[in-house]
Structures are given as C-alpha cells and as structure tokens.
C-alpha cells in the first residue's frame, strides 16, 4: 500500500501538474534559459513557496519531524547542477 499505491498516487498528481504547466514540451524547458518563457521558474518557485509553507506548518504542528535527507557536498551539488543544465537545455527535458 504505502510502497506502491501511495507513490503512484503522488506520481499521478506530479505528472498531472507537470503537463498542465506545459513542461512536457521542448520549447517550455529551453525558453527558460533564453528568458523568453519563464514557466519553469514560475512553476518551481510556486511549488517551493507552497511546499515550504505547508511543510513548516506540518512541522510546527508536530506532524512531521524534518530531517533533511538531501546530502550536502557543496562542490558535487554545484558541479552536478552544471552538468545537469547542459543536458536539460540541449534535450529540453
């Protein structure tokens, strides 16, 4: 249940929102890097604003103990981002 149904449901909502934002399309992804269509940025920032608010609300209510599970290795995170951006801008994924 929690290992199969829950991720599928979360994925459904995730995929749905991605498509509704038009982010399945090549030009939407590339144009954020050309500053002609900032949908990707708007989508990311909007998600973060809502996400941060809710997560810290849940945390404040004691429903969630927050353990940052994303490891920090400054150079790797940044360098990985640099490599990632090349692929993203080229392929438009």
């Amino acid at each position: 249940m929690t290992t199969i149904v829950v991720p599928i449901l979360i994925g459904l909502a995730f995929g749905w929102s991605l498509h509704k934002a038009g982010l399945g399309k090549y030009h939407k992804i590339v144009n954020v890097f050309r500053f002609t269509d900032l949908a990707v940025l708007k989508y990311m920032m909007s998600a973060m604003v809502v996400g941060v608010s809710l997560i810290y609300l849940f945390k404040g209510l004691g429903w969630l103990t927050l353990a940052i599970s994303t490891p920090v290795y400054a150079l790797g995170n940044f360098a990985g981002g640099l490599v990632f951006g090349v692929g993203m801008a080229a392929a438009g994924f």
Partner: protein
Amino acid sequence: MSVLTAKPQETDIPRRENWLVAQIRKPQWSPYAAGAMLGLTVALSLLVAGQMPGSSGAFENLIAYVGQKAVPQNIYFKFVMPPGITWQVWLLLGLFLGALASAWLSHDFKWRHVPEKQWVAIFGPQRWKRWTVAFVGGIILEIGAGIAGGCTSGLAISGGVQLAPAAFLFIPGMFISGILTALVIYRKKY
C-alpha cells in the same frame, strides 16, 4: 407535484460547464497554479510517506540491473543507486500516467517524433537529429543528477522545500550551464 418532474425548461438555458470539468479539460494551467499543486503534492508526500518525490532516481534504479551485471565492482550501482523497484520507480509510473491522463483529457495527446514548436524551425524536421540530441542530452542530464544527488524535482524542489542547502547549490549551477548551453545552441537566434 414532484420537484423532479417540474423542470422541462432546463434545456433552453445553455448548460454551464462545471468549473472542475473545465479545469480538467484545459490544456494548460497557469504555471503558478500547477506549481502550487506540486508544492501541495510534495508536502503531502513527505507527510504521508516520508519520501520526497524525484524522477531521475528511478531511471538509475532500473538501469542499475544492467549496470551491476556489466560492471559488478561498480561502486555507484552497489551503494548509491542499487537496483530495485523502489518507491521512486512507482512514482515514475504514476508520473507518466498522470501526465498521460492530463494530456488525454485536455485533447493535447498526440504522437510526436519531433517537437513541432520551435525545434523544427531551428533544427529542421529530421528525426535522427532530435533523437540523438534527446538521447545524449538525457545521458548528460542523468550523469549530472547522479553527481548532484537529484534532479529538478528530487533535489531542487523536494530539497528546496526543506530548505536543504544542496538544492540552492544545484539550482544556480543548473541555470548557469543551461543558459550557456542555450546560448551556444541558439547563437544568433538566442
């Protein structure tokens, strides 16, 4: 008189479409609205499942089956991304189905071999070009995600909502090289 039988004039009024149905049918939402939906999804995912949604990890978990067979001593597939039908793999399946449902219901679904907008105007309609760039670009993207520890969703957004420093190192890196790559690819058409 029954109330149920007493509405013959309803057909004269143009039927107002249900708001929810209209939103479902809409091919595109405001990116702010769609983003808010993702923010809600990420928060619920953390609350309900204690997991962060990400999409690049699933590909690595799947390809690890091949990778571990081919190079058994590989550390990455042994420890970092071991093979398995993980939580992320199911999420990816749902992600695909969710996007498919959205495309289908908004009549946006179509088999496309080459992105018709922008790509054709700049690179031409040849299929091999698009497929080569998509394939190579996809490999670069996955390598980058592997080094950084996540992609736009798994690291930038899911990490960002927890205010993880890693996300805020990744995002500038991604935009710096993305902008430079777009500059190089588009040159004068930038």
